[in-house]
């Protein structure tokens, strides 16, 4: 019987090999670096430069374009974010800039980004950034995420009276639209995308891969 099964086993081997190859290729799909395009001009005045974390004198600046509803962005923030903060930003090696890129395909993204701007107005952007990403499962499935986002803001000490006024006025919608236009003009259409020392990389990077790019940007072998 075993002899007659040989073609079948070969077929199984081909399926297994093809599947393993596809999965391996998917692993590397996010890490291809390409040169950063020249900055674009966006109508409506100067574009908000982004929320910054780390020393201005850090040798490497990383710009992250992210969407709060994007699962890969959340995965990156949850799995890699703490390492980056402790080992790269706190040690003065990297200055991190977060640029909002709420994608049209995500129903609740704009609300989340606006909530983060309103928290940022009170000096709580990064805390809200973490709240939003770490509580993805709470607000993303909601048809109206505003209530959950407000709870998240309240939990980090945001003055909810000022927050409510900011949200009701849609105070930062123009800023977010400009950021989207700016990203589009730079040819950035997926999140997360990173600009690291003149190189652009798309996809959620693992810490070790990111560190290699930082070392390269800093001129370290």
């Amino acid at each position, binding site marked *: 019987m075993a002899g007659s*099964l040989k073609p079948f086993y070969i077929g199984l081997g081909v*399926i297994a090999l093809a599947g393993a190859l596809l999965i391996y290729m*998917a*692993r590397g799909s996010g890490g291809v670096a390409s040169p950063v395009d020249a900055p674009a001009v966006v109508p409506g005045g100067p574009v908000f430069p982004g929320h910054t974390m780390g020393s201005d004198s850090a040798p490497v600046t990383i710009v992250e374009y992210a969407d709060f509803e*994007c699962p890969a962005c959340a995965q990156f923030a949850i799995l890699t974010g703490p390492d980056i903060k402790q080992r790269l930003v706190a040690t003065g090696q990297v200055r991190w800039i977060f640029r909002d890129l709420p994608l049209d*395909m995500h129903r609740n993204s704009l609300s989340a980004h606006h909530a983060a701007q309103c928290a940022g107005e009170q000096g709580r952007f990064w805390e809200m950034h973490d709240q939003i990403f770490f509580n*993805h*499962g709470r607000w993303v499935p909601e048809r109206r995420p505003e209530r959950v986002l407000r709870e998240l803001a309240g939990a980090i000490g945001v003055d909810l009276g000022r927050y409510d006024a900011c949200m009701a006025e849609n105070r930062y919608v123009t800023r977010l639209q400009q950021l989207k236009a700016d990203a589009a003009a730079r040819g950035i259409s997926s999140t997360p995308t990173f600009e690291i020392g003149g190189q652009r990389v798309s996809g959620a990077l693992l810490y070790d891969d990111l560190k290699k790019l930082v070392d390269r940007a800093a001129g370290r072998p």
Partner: protein
Amino acid sequence: MVSAALALVGLLVSLYLWLWKIGVLGALACGDGGCERVQLSPYAQVAGIPVALLGVVGYLAIFAVSLAGLQDPFIRRRWPTDAVVLLAGIGVAFSGYLTYLEAAVIHAWCRWCLVSVVIIVTIFGAALAGRIAESRR
């Protein structure tokens, strides 16, 4: 043979989703983000175990039993077919529950999960047909 080949494909699909879940893969090839929404929902794990990992284990078991059933010592035994019917039956029931959650609770469709549903239903159908044919002999 059909069960073993399909279980291998199902195993690869589950492995793909599980590797994403544990952060090995950067982004899922899913089109509209539905896979990520489903995978990040609270329903994507049971008692702390990712559903995708349960899929890996389940398909691995079906694959192993199906292969065992093709070997000379077991080729005329009924238990491998019975085991595949049982395992795939559990898989069909669980997949049905997960599909209901996607439709009625999460409001998002995970295309890879739907591929898995088709696979497990086909395995169950094929194994059941084989079992009925065996019982008539």
